[in-house]
């Protein structure tokens, strides 16, 4: 099973779902599950193969596409891509499982869902800037549709805001890529080729922020993060999971693997600004999360805060920093998926409220102890408790940051403490409300269903596995970071 299976299985599933006759619309979810499982297994197999033979050649596929432009259909899967593919596969499976009860236009829902997954796989595999951009943009319309049709709370506003931010950011990326293409001679979009070209420092100093900002808007960089909370809240559960879990990672991936290698000198110039914005994002996100009343908004702002760590790792530009950034991408992907899954699907579908004060009535600890325990573990993971993936990632970022900007670690420490505070607050209000005996008895709630249990266990198990034994992930990420793409960044003074 080559990594290409991820891409093809997702798009094939989307197509199959679309072609389903109306009377067997119920099969849509089954097809989507099979498609995403195939993708996940293919990614896992590829990861294992790479681990067992780390020095072998990287899988790649390369053929002509638009010769007059020099755009090629070039896919490749080094360790870094593989880990992100696996993340996508896992989140996809969990997302389908959490969407098991979608009955409103299920064919369209799963078709859009699988299209997003396919686009994400495509971005992580692309080695050609043009191709990467194609996959990057494919995601936009399905995202809009998922939110606008199946969403809740102000869905059309949230969907439109998110879409306009995305497309605006894409315009910046287009400019950045075109500039690099033109300055490198206008013959090829291959990322390695573009990165190998030498651009004048003057060009880098204005082209880098354009390209970097274009990518990082999707990664929720402060102050362009405002699409994230509204979008996440408006989206249906599976879409929130995808958005926070993997789509935000597209931006981070692009910034790491395209923007920074292309314009290393520009990066060096803007490095302190990026680090500053990242720290502001971490603290701002945490502080805002601390004052939210809606559970999904808490998680939405926590995403902004957590994505700040990714940016911070990249801004540090040390080996530890980059490694930490990728680890945090994976870790946050899993944890955000889990939190959104529990808050948006498991809790909301039963209580029909996400208001932290109103959740008190349901006394989740008593009525749904399984949910309370799962949410507690997810919160612990999100807080960066040792033993969960978040700890490994954050500690790597902090070490990396230390080597570049020691003083900023203090701000990060504050951010971590604030993260603990808002996580605990949300946990306390959601699962363990202060009830007095005079309160009305909690309503009985329907028990957990098997798709929910399996999705929660899958995500929790992965987060724990990374937290307890991160070595294979680190080996794979290091494999990717050894690529010549990152030489120019890691060798910055």
């Amino acid at each position, binding site marked *: 099973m080559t990594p290409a299976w991820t891409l093809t299985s997702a798009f094939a599933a989307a197509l199959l779902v679309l072609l389903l006759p109306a009377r067997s619309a119920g099969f849509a979810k089954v097809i989507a599950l099979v498609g995403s499982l195939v993708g996940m297994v293919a990614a896992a197999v590829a990861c294992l193969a790479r681990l067992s033979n780390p020095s072998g050649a990287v899988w790649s596929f390369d053929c002509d596409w638009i010769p007059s432009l020099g755009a090629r259909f070039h896919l490749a899967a080094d360790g870094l891509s593989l880990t992100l593919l696996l993340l996508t596969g896992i989140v996809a499976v969990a997302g389908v499982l959490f969407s098991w009860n979608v009955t409103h236009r299920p064919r369209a829902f799963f078709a859009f869902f699988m299209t997003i997954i396919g686009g994400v796989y495509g971005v992580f595999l692309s080695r050609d800037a*043009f191709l990467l951009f194609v996959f990057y943009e494919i995601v936009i*319309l399905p995202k809009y549709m998922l939110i606008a049709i199946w969403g809740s709370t102000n869905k059309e506003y949230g969907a439109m805001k998110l879409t*306009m931010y995305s497309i605006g950011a894409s315009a910046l990326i287009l400019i950045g890529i075109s500039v690099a293409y033109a300055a490198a001679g206008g013959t090829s979009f291959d990322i390695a080729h573009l990165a190998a070209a030498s651009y004048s420092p003057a*060009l880098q100093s204005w082209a880098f922020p354009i390209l970097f900002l274009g990518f990082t808007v999707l990664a929720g960089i402060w102050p362009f993060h405002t699409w994230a909370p509204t979008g996440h809240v408006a989206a249906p559960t599976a879409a929130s999971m995808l958005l926070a879990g993997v789509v935000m990672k597209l931006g981070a991936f692009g910034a790491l693997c395209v923007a920074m290698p292309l314009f290393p000198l520009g990066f060096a110039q803007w490095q302190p600004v990026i680090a500053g914005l990242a720290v502001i994002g971490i603290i701002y996100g945490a502080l805002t999360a601390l004052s939210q009343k809606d559970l999904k908004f808490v998680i939405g702002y926590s995403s902004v805060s957590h994505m700040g760590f990714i940016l911070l790792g990249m801004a540090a530009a040390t080996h530890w920093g980059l490694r930490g950034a990728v680890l945090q991408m994976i870790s946050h992907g899993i944890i955000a998926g889990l939190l959104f899954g529990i808050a948006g699907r498991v809790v909301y579908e039963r209580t029909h409220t996400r208001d932290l004060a109103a959740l008190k009535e349901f006394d989740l600890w008593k009525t749904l102890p399984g949910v309370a325990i799962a949410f507690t573990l997810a919160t612990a993971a999100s807080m960066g408790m040792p033993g969960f993936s978040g700890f490994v990632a954050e500690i790597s970022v902090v070490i990396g940051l230390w080597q570049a900007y020691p003083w900023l670690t203090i701000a990060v420490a504050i951010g971590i403490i604030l993260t603990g505070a808002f996580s605990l607050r949300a946990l306390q209000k959601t699962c363990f409300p202060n009830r007095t005996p005079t309160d009305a008895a909690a309503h009985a709630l329907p028990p957990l269903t098997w798709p929910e249990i399996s999705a929660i266990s899958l995500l929790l198990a992965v987060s724990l596995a990374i937290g307890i034994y991160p070595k294979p992930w680190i080996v794979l990420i290091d494999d990717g970071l050894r690529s010549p793409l990152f030489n120019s960044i890691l060798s910055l003074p």
Partner: protein
Amino acid sequence: MNYSTLFIQLLPEAVLVVTALLLLGVAVATEAKTGKPIANATASAISAIGVILAGFAIFNMPSNIDSGSQLISMDPLARIFKAVVLGLGLLAILLPPARREIQNPGEFFALILFALTGLSLTSGTNHLLFLFVALELASLSLYLLAGFPRTARASEASLKYFLFGGVSAAFLLFGLSLVYGFSNAATLPELAVKLAENPTSPLAIAGLVMVVVGIGFKLAAAPFHYWAPDVYQGAPATSVALISAASKAVGMVVLVRFLLIGFSAASGSAAWGGMVAGWSLWIGVLAAVSMIFGNVLALAQTSVRRLLAYSAVANTGYLLVGLCANGASAAGAALFYVVVYGLATLGTLAVTAAVERNRGNDSPTSFAGLVHRSPLQAVALLVFLASLAGIPPLAGFAGKFAMFSAALSASTHGGDPGLTWLVGLASIMSAISLYYYLSILKQAFVKESAEAGEESPITASHALAVGIPAAALVVLGLFPALLLDPITAALIGSMSGR
């Protein structure tokens, strides 16, 4: 002068004219016999057959023939765009006419064929005078086509179109005569030779300005676009399809021929920090104004047809970005994009016409619930609008990306910003355009239909008019090289004066 070769070269146009005459004859005969005008379906079938035959004539034309006439230049670019004109014309013919729009199908379709003849001839000439004559043949037909329903609105549209078109023709003619007066050359390659000797001649520049203004009217570039919204709204859908798709493509070909073949010596530069007076600069300004004007006004429209008119203005802006760089690959990409744009607009019009017939008006809200009423049209609409907005994997994306990156690489040298300002503006404007396209898609996919109206079943020709462009956009989006590479190669061939 080899007349047999000339006949072969003109065979496609000849087929069109003969079909038109035949159609008129059949129409008269039918009306005389039955007392009623010829049936719409019959008329459109006859003209469709004529267009297809003309297409065969193009495809079977031996390459590398030269009649020796200066009037007709059958270069590869002409060949491709004649085929494009016929293809877009065929799709326009297949469009379902809106209710009571066309009282006399015989005349209507004959006029379409005449318009196509004019457009086809226009795309295949480098001769200044013949270009004007052919263009006016097309334009006169289009003025009539725009006013065909004889409603107040259509009459207004037709009159506006006619007045603006007349003025633009005057500009064009005046410009051409100035150019001729300067160079004493009747064809563009000769002009290029003369211009190379004296690139800054005021007479030539004045002539070029007039020509650009004249063609700018045809292309609906701001600020010469005022006819567009009323025509798009008032004219029959078929006419609008021709005006927006085929006529625009031909206008681009003419402009490309003028600027890149005739006036390439006077290009100047619109690069940031290195601006040099010349057409590149004017085109750049025109592009910027069109993009901003078109997109901003489109945001405020409540009629889809008017929205498409402003989107046409905006798209003209993008096209001019491709020309502005004065590079073959950028201009080739622009020509590719104009085809793609034509397909997408034509398809959107086809869907709009159907919605209008069922719902009575073309406000975005009448698209509500389209996905339930007609999934095929809804999905096709998604393809058209997404392509217009430049979302991959559709052809509009490939066209824009190719155009922008080629424009940049033609204009930047070393580390200077070159045309980044214009390309940046274009990509951001293109991003903004998604907002209004999405507002239509939102109605079609997200909203539920308020009223359960009667749905007339979709006809075969309508399905083709919707399905073919959609399929073409997907295929060209996945494999843009299919059309982009031939166009670029042809343009390079034409420029080198083969």
